[in-house]
């Protein structure tokens, strides 16, 4: 009996803590090199191109890696298409027939651009990934839902705004977001810069849920899914966070009201070792901005950051590892 319980326990544990780490033993060097070296002016011959791109790779995980990396390093985010779609969707928000018509019209425009110019918006990335996977016999799905980026409030979460994928490898589903992995958009300047972020490749479901809330809960790949309200209240994580941490342990919320002179604890599970001297908190209030070296402990890859709030007031508190912004929290310190 004890043995059975032990095995169940091991099985449970191995199921819980395994996403990217499932493939830690696989060397992606060859796959990445292939993805980087293949160019295609357009994607009109998607089928043949995908075969050529993945030729010689035996395992699904390697084929998937080549396809994923190729898409994220060659397909750019088209800000104009994004803005156009957003404008129309906002306008037709209350008129479902017009919205449907627009969606259909936009879809054609979108796929033409994607196949001819390799430019698109989220759903285009998700479609392309699914399509290229199906060419080599890998099962992938498009997931629509709420993507939470900077400045998004709960009011913005009325309509879905983002698409990503789940993919089945060795009979298990995994999460990925090819759009956000590809790079960063600068809306004011209307430009996009490729900057691959590996943090969105087979991301831990516990971390992914911080900024991806699927319309259908089962696509979160979580056993217990937070409510949409809980989702909106989570701390704000930036792209870098997905690269550097594998779990955001605490706090659970973004906004906090605490008493003066009390100590607050932030806790993260790290993917790899970091230089503790480079962990800093930046406090921003209406008057100024202060860099603070907090008390930091690291134990078993768990980073614990403690800070005692000395002054009353409102603060935006940003966690940085060196120059990379990781997370933002908001504090009201009372007497």
């Amino acid at each position, binding site marked *: 009996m004890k043995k059975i319980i032990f095995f169940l326990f091991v099985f449970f544990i191995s199921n819980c803590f395994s996403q990217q780490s499932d493939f830690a033993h696989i060397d992606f060097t060859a796959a990445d090199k292939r993805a980087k070296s293949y160019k295609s002016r357009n*994607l*009109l*011959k*998607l*089928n*043949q191109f995908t*075969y050529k791109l993945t030729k010689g790779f035996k395992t699904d995980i390697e084929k998937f890696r080549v396809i994923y990396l190729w898409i994220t390093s060659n397909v750019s*985010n088209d800000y104009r*298409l*994004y803005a156009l*779609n957003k404008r129309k969707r906002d306008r037709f928000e209350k008129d479902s027939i017009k919205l*449907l*018509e627009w*969606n*259909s019209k*936009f*879809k*054609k425009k*979108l*796929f033409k651009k*994607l*196949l001819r110019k390799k430019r698109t*918006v*989220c*759903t*285009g990335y998700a*479609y*392309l990934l699914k*399509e290229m996977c*199906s*060419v080599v016999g890998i099962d992938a799905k*498009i997931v*629509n839902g709420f*993507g939470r*980026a*900077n*400045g998004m409030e709960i009011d913005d979460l009325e309509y*879905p*705004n*983002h*698409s990503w994928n789940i993919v089945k490898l060795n009979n298990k589903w995994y999460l990925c977001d090819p*759009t*956000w992995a590809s*790079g*960063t*958009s600068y*809306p004011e300047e209307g430009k996009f810069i490729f900057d691959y972020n590996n943090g969105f490749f087979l991301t831990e479901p516990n971390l992914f849920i911080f900024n991806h809330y699927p319309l259908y809960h089962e696509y979160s790949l979580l056993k217990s899914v937070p409510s949409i309200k809980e989702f909106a209240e989570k701390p*704000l994580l*930036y*792209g*870098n966070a997905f690269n550097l941490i594998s779990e955001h342990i605490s706090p659970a919320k973004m906004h906090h009201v605490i008493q003066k002179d009390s100590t607050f604890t932030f806790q993260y599970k790290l993917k790899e070792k970091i230089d503790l001297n480079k962990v800093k908190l930046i406090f*921003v*209030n*209406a008057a100024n901005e202060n860099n603070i070296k907090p008390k930091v402990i690291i134990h078993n890859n768990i980073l614990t950051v403690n800070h005692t709030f000395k002054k009353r007031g*409102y603060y*935006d508190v*940003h966690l940085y590892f060196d120059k990379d*912004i990781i997370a*933002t929290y*908001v504090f009201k310190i009372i007497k």
Partner: protein
Amino acid sequence: MKTTKTISVNKSTFAFLGLILSILFFSNSFQAQEMEVKGVVKGKSESITEILSGATVYLKGTNDATSTNRKGEFTFPKKLKKGDVLVFSYLGYKRKQVKITEKTSFLSVVLLEDDNEMLGALNSNKRFKSKRLKQ
């Protein structure tokens, strides 16, 4: 005497086998008749049906494939036979499978638009600022 008998049996067996073989050969060549398949691929949405250029056409279970040209037309690069299945796909449309019969030479395929919504949220590394601080 015995020898002649054997020979005659052999002769008739040979003739019989020849007949069977030729029947098999002819019927086989009839069944396995290979044909060139051409066609056109269109996409249908709520409001409009239009040609699809760049649609993928492939033989199920193989990597023999082609794409439609600017007029939505294709000529499959490999001769096909009865029972083969061609798969048609294009981004944003539901894929369709067509079984080849003896009579297939020209296929007019209409793909139906799927109902997925087109969305886009931008990734941003811009630092958050509370509304309270923006005033």
